């Protein structure tokens, strides 16, 4: 079994329901996110388009975070999930330096690294991840990539013909198990959009001054 994730960006409407569900399910502290939905605006008014991209851990097959972790706190589960043992983590932040997707954060409460685990605790009980359940348009698709009859495998095959299935930063050779349908450069490449500090749509886009509670 190799669990994977797919987001159909044609369906996503940026409601952030997945983001909130993840926060609640995993009790993610303030100023930390396992999953977030990024809004990127393209064009000049009135010809503008807003894109929405849910971003979470890619559960890479060759995960740099797992490789660099000095104490195996980050480890693979048999189903392919890259899990984290918070009791073992020493908080060196090597994983944060290694992850090309910025998917790992330092939990300010426990002072250990943390990230999306595809809700491994729910999966172990044969439940879907919280974000999948919360999505009102079923843009989040989760399942077994090794099973050709699974919904995710079928979805990938269906969209493969037009080259519409992409991963983030394939050049990093991490072999992500998180796919996107309908995504372009603006969705998936952080360098394709400007990220300016200051007030924008609803909030002040900024950087965290502190990493964890250090």
């Amino acid at each position, binding site marked *: 079994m190799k669990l994977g994730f797919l987001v159909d960006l044609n369906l996503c409407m940026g409601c952030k329901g997945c983001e909130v569900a993840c926060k609640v399910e995993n009790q993610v502290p303030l*100023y930390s*996110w396992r999953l*977030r939905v*990024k*809004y*990127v*605006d*393209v064009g*000049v*008014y009135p*010809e503008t388009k*807003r894109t929405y991209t849910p*971003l979470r851990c890619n559960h890479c097959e060759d995960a*740099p975070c797992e*490789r*660099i*972790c*000095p*104490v*195996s706190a980050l480890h693979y589960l048999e189903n392919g999930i890259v899990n984290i043992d918070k009791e*073992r*983590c*020493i*908080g*060196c*932040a*090597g994983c*944060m*330096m*290694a*992850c*090309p*997707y*910025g*998917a790992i*954060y*330092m939990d300010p409460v426990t*002072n*250990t690294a943390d990230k999306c685990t595809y809700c491994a605790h729910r999966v172990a009980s044969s439940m879907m991840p919280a974000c999948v359940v919360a999505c009102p348009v079923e843009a989040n698709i989760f399942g077994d990539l090794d099973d050709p009859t699974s919904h995710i495998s079928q979805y990938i095959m269906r969209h493969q013909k037009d080259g519409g299935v992409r991963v*983030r930063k394939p050049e*990093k050779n*991490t072999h992500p198990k998180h796919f996107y349908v309908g995504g372009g450069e603006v969705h998936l490449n*952080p*360098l*394709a*959009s*400007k*990220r*300016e500090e200051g007030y*924008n*749509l*609803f909030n002040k*886009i*900024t*950087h*965290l001054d502190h*990493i*964890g*509670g*250090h």
Partner: protein
Amino acid sequence: MVEHTVAATNAIVTLDVPIPQVIWGWMITLNMWAKSIGTGVVLVGAYLLARHGREVGESVKIWMPIISFIFLNIFLLFTLLDLHQPLRMWHIFVYPHWSSAITVGAWMATLFTAIIFVMMLIALRKFVLAHEDRVPRFCRKLAQMEFLNDELYDKLLKVAVVLALPVTMYTATIMGEATARELWQTPTELVQMLLAAILTGSAVYLIIGQKWSYEVKRDLAIMLGVSAFLSFVIYMGEYYFGHMKAEEVAAILSYVKEGPYAAMFWAGQWIAFIIPMALVYFSLRSRSASLLFLAGVLAIVGLYITKHVWLIIPQLLPLS
């Protein structure tokens, strides 16, 4: 709204969460800088013992392990302080993950520090034996430990020199494993780490060896000048050619070309490499060693600035 001001082909992030920026900060810079000195004095010290042992042997044998031990402990202390869970440091020894350069490095650095500690005890014992009437009573116990002798020192020195190489270079493999930071390429960083050790090692001896002959200082000056030159050439290679291979590297280098770290980058290059190279050149031409003290101090100070800039700039880039 900001999207009114950008061209149609441009895109701008309008809603997102705050993302982390600098994860490894000044403590890691201090870690790398102190490790360069701690290993560099051993590598350059071994050369001095082999080449000029008759003149400087006694002095180098005492000061090499003492200086190395001090800086290795600065390196270890700040490595520990930078952990978010420093009290769990022992996990690295009971749950080692051998694919991690952090694990391999921690084990090697610990062993290296232990060897340097024993060498320092031997050096201190020699000092106690020479000044037995002037040292406190508890120090005299050291004099009774006869196994701490020159023979053991020479054996340990060989192991220390062999270990100093991977200990000084392993941080480059951590940088290589940091897949997110495109700027750091392991082969280049391995050479930079080794050059940093030779640069700081020779600089330390130029500072403490004021009474040594010109011939010894000339050798140290050449080591300092050559390592500064090679290091500078590699940085310039990255600076001028790095952007031609990858978008990420180009974006990172823009922080030192016209961005917030431009002044700091050039300050580091001038203080660590360019001015010391010039001082070495003038010193060798005039056969005068008076400028070399300054060259040594500048190289050590400048290396910290250079390392810091190179550590920070890849972290400024948004990853997602």
